[in-house]
Each structure stands twice: as structure tokens, then as C-alpha cells.
């Protein structure tokens, strides 16, 4: 048995339950948010942490926080039960302040996700009002909000952007050119469905290109794996039905079809042969997309990796109570 003293535990000083904790792009900062309506920021440096700030502007529990790519500066987004999304920006010397309050939703905003940086500062938001909104900082210097109504009739629980470079397109010339970038995202909702949305240049809007059915209860989270040059796209989903699925879509064979909206079939694989013991709340990929972390209602976090045979293997488990699993 190995032991390791590098573990760091600290008190966030929230006054109520935490709902989310997110590390930034470099893993140097941690943002936590809570039912107490605040966001707390910490600097993490190896074995030490330093409290940086409390951000208090929401009037209800804060569900999620999301750090923007550092090329846009030190920017954080938060979404809340109060139905708003706030975008915070740090200014040297004066700390974080709200630069945008997005209040077009009529119910709790449950999920937010920044687009891949290549697409610019675009924030995707999913709400219990069934709508999805896209908040874009335009070249004119204003925030533009685009609303997708009836995305999931009974509420949106999760959103995730697809990698901007299409699967299998890495080796193709111009894959990273703006015109070739994939503009797609996935959403999961209380209607038990996962929807894949793609941008249509002619309509200048996102529209559903595929509905992935299979979960038997609310979809709690969806997460696209980053594209590290593999020939297929990976999307993980988890649900109230205690299942985690890996949805894969092979890259189109022809170069011409390698762009966005290519209509290869999605294949569903169950992560573990038997359902998880409880509701699965969150799925998240490692930065290079080769490890999937799953948080289950049985209060365990398990890490999974695709093995050489293309099967998913549990490679690690965090057992929180100090007892052998």
C-alpha cells in the first residue's frame, strides 16, 4: 500500500453546501460555489492553498462555475438557482468584478460551459426553463445572447462543447483553420434525452442534428472528450437511471465529409457491465481525454480508461471513507 502526504484538505469557509469546485486551465486556481450564494477563489500551489476572494452577486445557490481559456484573461462564469449567469473578470489591482449579468432565463440555470477557445468567448448555458442560451462576446465588444427555446422541454441539466477539430481531421491540411472548426455541442435534460446541436451558417443558429436516446431517467451530465487525434468522437453521459454510456461516432471516411455535421452513426457502449449502485451525477474527462472520472451517488469517484481492446476498465476509485472497497 502506498501512502502519500501530498494531499491537501482545506476549509472553504462556505456557509452552506458546496455544489461545484473547478480548477482553472493551469490547475493553479480553484473556484468553489455554494448554496450560500457565493463563489470562493483559492490559489493552489503544490501543498499549499491561499484564499483569494469571495464573489457575492448571486441571490441564490450557485450551481456551477467555469473558467474561461486564459487567452481571454482571468475570466470566470457562474450560474445559479436565481436564474442568472454572471461573468466575472479579474482586473489587476482591483480583483474580480461582474462584467456581464445574463438574466434571460426564467428558472434555475443548471449548467454552463465555455466554448473551445478557438470559437471565441462563447458561454453555453442550460436551464430548468428548458432553454439553452449562448452568450457571445462579439467583435463589436458587446455580449450577444442567443436563446434556443424548448431545448429539453422539462429542463436542461448539462451542456458540453464538442472538440473544434473533427475526429480524424487532425492530419488533414487546414483542420485548425477557422472555416473548418466544428461548432457543435451536446445537452442533456429531464426528458431523458441527449441532443447534439450543430451550427448552421445559413441560419446563423444552432439546431438539433441528433437525439441520442437510451437513458431511462433524467440525464444528469454529458461530456465530450477532448480530441487528441483519435479517429472517433467520444461523448460520455450519466443519468438518474444509474447508467453511464460512452457514445462514439467514427470519423467520416472521406475527407470531404470530415467537416462538421457529418452524419456517421453514434454507437452506445455501457461503461460498466452492470449499472452503478446509485444515481450518477457527473462525468468528466481528463485534459487529454484518455481518462473518464465518474461521480456516483454511492459517494465514490471512479476513474475509467479504454484498454487496448477498446473496452472500458476501471483504473482507480476514490473511496472516501477510509475503508477498503
Amino acid at each position: 500500500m502506498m501512502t502519500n502526504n501530498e494531499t491537501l484538505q482545506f476549509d472553504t469557509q462556505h456557509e452552506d453546501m458546496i455544489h461545484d469546485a473547478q480548477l482553472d486551465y493551469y490547475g493553479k486556481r480553484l473556484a468553489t460555489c455554494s448554496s450560500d450564494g457565493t463563489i470562493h477563489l483559492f490559489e493552489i500551489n503544490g501543498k499549499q492553498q491561499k484564499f483569494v476572494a469571495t464573489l457575492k452577486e448571486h441571490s441564490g445557490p450557485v450551481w456551477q462555475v467555469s473558467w474561461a481559456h486564459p487567452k481571454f484573461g482571468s475570466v470566470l462564469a457562474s450560474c445559479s438557482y436565481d436564474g442568472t449567469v454572471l461573468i466575472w473578470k479579474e482586473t489587476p489591482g482591483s480583483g474580480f468584478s461582474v462584467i456581464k449579468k445574463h438574466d434571460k432565463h426564467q428558472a434555475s440555470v443548471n449548467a454552463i460551459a465555455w466554448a473551445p477557445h478557438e470559437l471565441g468567448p462563447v458561454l453555453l448555458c442550460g436551464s430548468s426553463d428548458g432553454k439553452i442560451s449562448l452568450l457571445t462576446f462579439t467583435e463589436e465588444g458587446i455580449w450577444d445572447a442567443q436563446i434556443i427555446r424548448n431545448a429539453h422541454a422539462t429542463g436542461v441539466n448539462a451542456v458540453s462543447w464538442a472538440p473544434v477539430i473533427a475526429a480524424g481531421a487532425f492530419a488533414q491540411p487546414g483542420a485548425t483553420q477557422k472555416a473548418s472548426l466544428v461548432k457543435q455541442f451536446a445537452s442533456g435534460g429531464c426528458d431523458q434525452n441527449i441532443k447534439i446541436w450543430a451550427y448552421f451558417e445559413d441560419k446563423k443558429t444552432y439546431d438539433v442534428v441528433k437525439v441520442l436516446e437510451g437513458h431511462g431517467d433524467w440525464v444528469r451530465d454529458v461530456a465530450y472528450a477532448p480530441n487528441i487525434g483519435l479517429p472517433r468522437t467520444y461523448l460520455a453521459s450519466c443519468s438518474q437511471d444509474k447508467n453511464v454510456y460512452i457514445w462514439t461516432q467514427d470519423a467520416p471516411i472521406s475527407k470531404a465529409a470530415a467537416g462538421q455535421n457529418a452524419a456517421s452513426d453514434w454507437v452506445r457502449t455501457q461503461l460498466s457491465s452492470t449499472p452503478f449502485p446509485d444515481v450518477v451525477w457527473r462525468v468528466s474527462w481528463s485534459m487529454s481525454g484518455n481518462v473518464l472520472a465518474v461521480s456516483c451517488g454511492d459517494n465514490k469517484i471512479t476513474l475509467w480508461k479504454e484498454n487496448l481492446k477498446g473496452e472500458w476498465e476501471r483504473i482507480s476509485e476514490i473511496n472516501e471513507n477510509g475503508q477498503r472497497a
Partner: protein
Amino acid sequence: MQKIRTKVDKFVVSRDKEAVTHLFPGLFPAGRQAEWSEQNRTLTFSIHPTNNKLALAVAGKQPRESIKRDTQTFEQDQSVTICGLATVPDERVSFVNDTHAVFVELQTTMANSISASDKTAVGVEGVLRMSGLYREAMLKQIRVLQESGVDDEFIKEEIETFQSMHGIWHLIEIMYLTTNTPGLSTSVVSPYMKWLNANFTTSLVEDGKRIAEGPPTADELAERDGLWEYLKKLALRGHVSALANMLERLEPSQQLSAPAAHWVRTVSQSTKRMPIGSNEETSGSFRVRWKQWSEEQRDMAKSISDLLQDSSADTHDSVLQALLTISEIMSGNVDTISAESEYWQDILGAVMLYSEPTAQVDRLPSLVGAIIEQYESSDFTELDRALVALLSHDLPEFLILCSRIDPWLSAHIADLMSHIGILSICRRIFTLDPREHYLLALGESYVGHEDLWRVGLDYLGLIGTRTGSSVMEEHVVRLPLDSDRKAEQILRVCDTYKLTRARDRIHRQLGRQKWQRGRLGAAIGHFAQVADTASIGLICDQLWKEYLDSGKLTYGSVIDSVISTGVEHDRLMFLVKYRDFHESYRAGEYVESGKIILSILLSEIAPSYAVADLLVDTIPLLESDVLVFSSDDTFELMRCAESLAGSSEAKHRESNGNGELGIFNIACSRNLARAFVMS
């Protein structure tokens, strides 16, 4: 702002071979997960981008507003834990560095072998040399761990792991590099016996020292404890010279019965005659000699057996019984060999040595298959399984079993197999490329380590695939730029692996970092590397503004350091020329200074907001005793002033009412008049 209270000291993570990470104490009280789940709690987490850590917290599933009023609150609700999942133990760092150097050299050697005239020979020779270096590093690691004096479970497991890795590596080296390379196929028996003796040590050495201590007389030797067990082991492990010598020393003993003494002498002499093959001898000739010797052993075994069954003899003569066992082992009797062997590896060795001394690698699968049938597979360790898979030529299974022993092993074995051309079968079977798959995992596990990040990047970069390169790029841009030296190292890595996008991003990041720290020259240098003219322009504007605010021209050293590196930018040239203007003016070289300021204005390298200041700077020159500006020059100055008229800068100056531009206009008129007169 409240100060945050920390409690860092009492928390540890432990992990074991079941890949479960335990937190002590747990986030929840032991055995109360279900209860906590009912109390609206789950776990939330964030994966650290680079260093195999998770930020982990007890989280509320529903917000406070949506849950029952009597839902409890817990102290743990406010805690965040950041825990490592797969750290490289300190004890391994030196080994990782050593073997990284070998890995890098192996890739270079193999890349060079492609262009060599005799590719195969260069390749095999190179891989064999590197394989030896890998094994040396493993043996060194075992020695270091054994000599560390630390006697805990972790060190014991590490020693066991390294011994397993060495055993596997040594065997694959024998099977695919020493005895079975293209154009060369020799008997595997002798290398196998060396492997067996090197990797599965028994108490032979200690027993040998104890028994031979003295040295004993023949009688003393006959009375030594464990003598015959030792002699049987010598026979099993193929130490025939030692066996013959020991029997020879024993023979004069008065403790032996007459028949026993006779057979001790006979077995000793026969053992000495065991045929040894040589390069000069044909295999046919060797086989004939072997057959004769083997028959001699069988005859000897039969005679001793007959003697023991003879009712007139002492059937309980333990010496005769032991000599029978030794003879049967040397005659290749599988039942006796199996009964006397501690490991299945011993059986394979003795069977090959005494029954098939010329066996080549292709015989191993059937031989090992017959032997392991006698064992319950559940008794096998991962090492046993890996060795059996290797000996059975089941390389895909072998590779998977290696990965269960250690990620270092699977990554380096897959790499080795790829270089010697035996990974193709695995590539056909597996969905993912094994070499890439395992090297990626290994490289990523090193990148987040404070001292091994450079090593990790090499592993990712030297995979040589698009995926390896992509993963490397994602990591390299996130590495903390703690010092200039580290930043330089990272940039060099980007250059080596042609990660141009990452290199550009790092230069931009460094530029912003230096800018924030007031190191403007260095910041310009980094922005210049990525042709970020906008940022360079902004820094130059900052320098100009500082000059205007302070009235002191102090940016000279910054600009000189940048210019000396060859950076070209209009705004920089403006600042340089403006500095030159000041210096020549201060030296009383008015004509020269006039030329410089005119060239600044005509070349349009100055920002528009600085033009008015430049024009004002010409007033003393226009009014000087010496004629500095010709009529043409003066017309140019007036044209510049004309183009400035109506601009926001001009309006701003007018509104300030300082009248400087009015004075400039008058000075121009007077200078023009003087210039006409002088001409």
C-alpha cells in the same frame, strides 16, 4: 475578508494494487455513505489538468431551497480535498531519469538504423545494447532499494515489482534478441538457465557456502545438513561442474556404504562428462554425443534403482536414494524433475537442459504448455502469467499482463517490441496501438511531476504519432513558467518537437508575465517571437507615456536590449530615434538632431498622438542661431502640422490653451524666411 483555516497535516492517501485510493480520514464517516446520500450529499470533483490530481468535495445534490428543512449540515460540507491519484514515488525518480536517457537513445539509434546499410544488424545490436542498459537500471534500482535500510511494505513491493520487471525483460531479451534474431537461431537452453539462475535465486549460494565452509573433510562433508538437497538443486539448475566436484570430495568418506561410495564416484565422473556444445561442433555431432551421455544417465539411474530394490542391499540408504534422484534428473525424468522443483520455471529449465539441450525458442510454447498443466492457474502470480504468455508466444496477452505489473514495464516493453518488429501482431488484434497507448499513459504520469516534467514531455514527443504530439501540446502550454530557465527549457522542447502553436502561446504567456512584472524589454522580446506587433506597440506606448509623465527619458536600456536581438517594429524605431534626437540635441548637435526628428516625422513611425509633441520639440531648433531646417525641411514640418490640424490631439492641445502649436507655426514662418535669405 476572512482568513481561511487549514487542516492539512492529518490527511493521507493510500493506494494498493486494487487501484483504490483511500482517504484517511474519509470525507464521510465510515459506513455512513447511504445515510449521507439520503441527506442530499454526493461528491463533486474537478480533474487537475496536468498532475494526476483531483479536487474533491462533498456536494449538495439539490440547493438548500429545494431540500427538506430538517436536512442536516455537516462540517465536511465546507471542505475541499486535493488528492493525488498516481504519483511517482521519490524512490523512483532516479530510475525514471536513468531509463529515460536509455529510451531517448534507443529512439535515436533506431531512427539512425533506418538509414544504415545493414539495417537489421544495426537495429538488433542497438536494441540489445539498450536492453542491457534498461536491465542495469532495474538491477541498480533493486540494489538501491535493498540497501536503503527501509523495511516497509512499499519498499518490499517496489523490490518485488522491479525483480518481476527484470525477469520479464531478461527473458524477452533472450527470446528475441539473443537467440532468435533474423539470420541467427541458436539454442535457448543455456541462456534460459542463466536467466533462471539470475532471476529466481534459491538458497543455493548460501547453502553452498555453508556446506563448503572449512573446507570440510570428506567425512565432515557427508555429515553436513542439507547436503543432498543442495546437490539435487545443483543438478536441477544445471550446475554440473559444482555437482561433480562436490561428489568427488565426498567419495573418500568412510560414512558412505560401499555401494554408495561406488555410485558417488560413478555419478561424479559421469557428470563431468556431460557434453558441452561449441561453435566448432555441428549440432548433429553434439546430438550424438548427448544421446550417449543421456543413455548413460538412464542406465545409471536404473542400476541404482535396481540396487535399492535388491533385497540384499540396504534399501534405506539415503545416499543411494539421493543419487538415484540426481541421476533421474540428469536423465530428463519429468516426474522426478517436477517433484524436486520449487518453481515451474525450474521444471522447464531442467527438462530442456537434460532432454532437449538444443531446443530453440519455437519449442518453448509446447514445453511450457505441458508443464503448467500441472498447476492450478489460480496459484499463478501476474509475473507467472506474464512469463507463461511470453514463453507461449502469446504476445497480446503478455503485453496486457505487463501493464498489470507496472506501467513503466508495459510502455517500455511495447516500445521494445515495436523496434524489434514483434508488435505488429498486437496491433492487428487491439483496437488501440499498444505502444502509443502505454507510452501516453507513462508520459502523462511524469509530466505533472515537479522534477520529471521534461522526461514526460520526451515520452509524449517520442511516441511520434499525432496523438502523442497533441497530448504533449496540451501539457506543455500548461506547465508552470516558474523561472526564466524553466521557460527556456520548455521553449527548447517546443522547438525540438516542432510544436509551433504551443511555442507561440508560451511566448505570449511569457510576454504578458514579463509585462506585468515590469520587465518590458523581455516582454517585447517574447511578443516579437510571435510577431505580436499590437502588444509591442502597447508596451512602446507605455514607455512613451512614462517619458511624457516623468519628463525623463529612461527607456534607453530597455530599447537597446531589444534592438540588439534584431527585433524590428516601427514603434521601437520611433523610440530609438527619439532617444538619438535627445542625445544629439543635448550634445549641441542641432543640425543632426534636426535631421533625426525630421526623419521620424517623414517616416511616419511615430504614433499619431506623439506628432504634436515632436513638432513642439522642433521649436528650439527652428529658433536656434544656426539654421537647422532648410526651406524644404520647413515645408515638410508645416505639412505634418497641417495633417495634424483637426485631429483630436490638436484640439486637445488647443483647448488646453498652451498655444504651443501656434508658437510652432510662427517659428516655422521665421525659419522659412531665414532659409530663403540664407539660400
